[in-house]
């Protein structure tokens, strides 16, 4: 087996074909990405714990199996990483927090089991905001991840290392989690594809919870096809996850390559023009994408829903209440062991009235029913993700200002599948993004629309120059 091209930017689909046909060695591939990570990650902090020894063990096993003709499928020999709130047997799951230092996982998370069974090459545990809520923070045992397009800028979060590592070419695929936007935010800011699937589509067992009724496990990759391939592997019912949906899964690549003629695309414009005022470059990117989809044959119209603020208030009331219930004991006993950002954001749930929590869940049902009714009029919806390009990571006021300026949380409330896709770059060279949202379990259609848009633009071919 021999190397082909720049291995850092191979897609999962490209790598899979090279690996299957024995033109690329899994060991050579893993070694190339290990070397790249060792060379550059000191400047980006994508990894909390890189595990090159485990990667090479997986890669050698994959190589032996492929050489024997036992190719397991498109993830066999492909490197991946896990946000460090996802369990991998024998390794610490720290949630990027002093609180969980030394918390060794006794079993794999379900998503880890599935990636290992597919023959993936595990590269390590990736940075997160503390407990998937507090960051970017400089008062934790490990530094925060930084943006691969400009290390002075925020990379989004909370699946920050997953976005950075994928965007930086340290690996082609990573797992993140999303409770108020934490897969889609780093995807938008790092210029990669991030899917928050339908609530319950992917098991959460073995993942440190933030808020039970809003938590989703999701996928970050550099192309739409890779994202669909990865979701194919990890989706599925888990009877031991109370939130798991017992629904047919798979076939997420089935519609890729089909055109979008006649697909009804609703532009949810008031989120980023009226409810919040997005940066003009963000808004311009979405408008250009809508125009592009129309040129491709989609039927584009404007739609509306409840004001963004209602969704966000509902999300934050539920999120902080459920999260504080998880953290109350540690808040009593070890408040000093949290970073300041996580502590303050978690403490927001300390004194939420029970009636307010219940009313938020009652509003959630109304908002969800009304939102799903929109899919009588349209097939997919496009709207903003972040309202601003990535701010400087060392500017706490800018981080605080932009943290809540997003329109991702509504789809944690509704449980809808939502995909973040790049729409270009700001004048400063930072990625811009939007979301494509569908009705429950319509991931295949979302990928179809995203793929058609991706193929009609050239954002996917652009890569950052690392320092």
């Amino acid at each position, binding site marked *: 087996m021999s190397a082909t091209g720049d291995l850092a930017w191979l897609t999962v689909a490209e790598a899979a074909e090279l690996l299957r046909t024995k033109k690329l060695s899994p060991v050579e591939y893993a070694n190339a990405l290990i070397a790249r990570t060792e060379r550059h990650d000191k400047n980006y902090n994508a990894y909390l714990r890189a595990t090159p020894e485990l990667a090479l063990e997986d890669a050698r096993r994959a190589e032996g199996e492929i050489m024997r003709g036992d190719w397991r499928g498109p993830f066999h020999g492909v490197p991946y990483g896990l946000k460090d709130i996802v369990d991998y047997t024998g390794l610490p799951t720290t949630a990027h927090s002093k609180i969980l230092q030394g918390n060794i996982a006794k079993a794999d998370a379900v998503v880890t089991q599935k990636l290992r069974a597919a023959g993936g090459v595990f590269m390590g545990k990736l940075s997160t905001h503390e407990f998937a809520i507090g960051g970017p923070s400089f008062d934790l045992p490990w530094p925060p991840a930084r943006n691969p397009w400009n290390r002075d800028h925020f990379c989004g979060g909370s699946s920050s290392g997953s976005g950075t590592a994928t965007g930086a070419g340290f690996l082609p695929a990573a797992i993140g989690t999303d409770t108020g936007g934490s897969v889609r935010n780093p995807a938008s800011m790092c210029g990669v594809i991030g899917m928050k699937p*339908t609530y319950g589509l992917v098991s959460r067992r073995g993942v440190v919870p933030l808020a039970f009724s809003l938590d989703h496990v999701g996928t970050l990759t550099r192309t739409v096809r890779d994202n669909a391939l990865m979701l194919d592997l990890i989706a599925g019912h888990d009877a031991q996850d109370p939130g798991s949906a017992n629904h047919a899964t798979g076939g997420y690549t089935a519609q890729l390559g089909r055109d979008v003629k006649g697909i009804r695309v609703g532009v949810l414009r008031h989120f980023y023009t009226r409810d919040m005022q997005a940066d003009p470059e963000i808004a311009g990117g979405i408008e250009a994408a809508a125009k592009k989809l129309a040129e491709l044959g989609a039927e584009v119209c404007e739609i509306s829903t409840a004001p963004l603020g209602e969704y966000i208030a509902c999300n934050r009331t539920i999120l902080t209440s459920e999260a504080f219930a998880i953290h109350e004991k540690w808040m009593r006993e070890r408040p000093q062991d949290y970073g300041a950002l996580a502590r303050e954001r978690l403490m*927001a749930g300390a004194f939420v009235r029970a009636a307010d929590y219940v009313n938020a*869940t*009652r509003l959630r049902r109304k908002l969800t029913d009304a939102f799903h009714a929109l899919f*009588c009029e349209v097939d997919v919806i496009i709207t903003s993700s972040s309202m601003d390009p990535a701010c400087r990571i060392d500017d706490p006021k800018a981080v605080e200002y932009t943290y809540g300026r997003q329109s991702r949380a509504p789809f944690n409330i509704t449980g809808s599948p939502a995909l973040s896709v790049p729409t270009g770059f700001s004048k400063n060279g930072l990625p811009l993004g939007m979301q494509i949202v569908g009705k429950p379990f319509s991931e295949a259609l979302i990928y179809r629309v995203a793929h058609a848009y991706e193929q009609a633009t050239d954002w996917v071919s652009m890569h950052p120059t690392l320092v």
Partner: protein
Amino acid sequence: MTNDNLTIDDVRKMAADIGMTRLSEGQSQELLRATQAARARRASLHTDKLTPADEPAHVFSLTSGNGR
């Protein structure tokens, strides 16, 4: 109690009532800010839209039949 009259002493007492007795002065200030923000958010929860029959989403489930 509204945000206007919520004081650091109030918050310290509320914290003590739920066993959070180890907060430093700075951490108590964080709790005050967090509690004020949470209360301010209540205004955006439009409970006036709810009728007595509106059920909570305690059991949140989805099927492909949702939507179209």
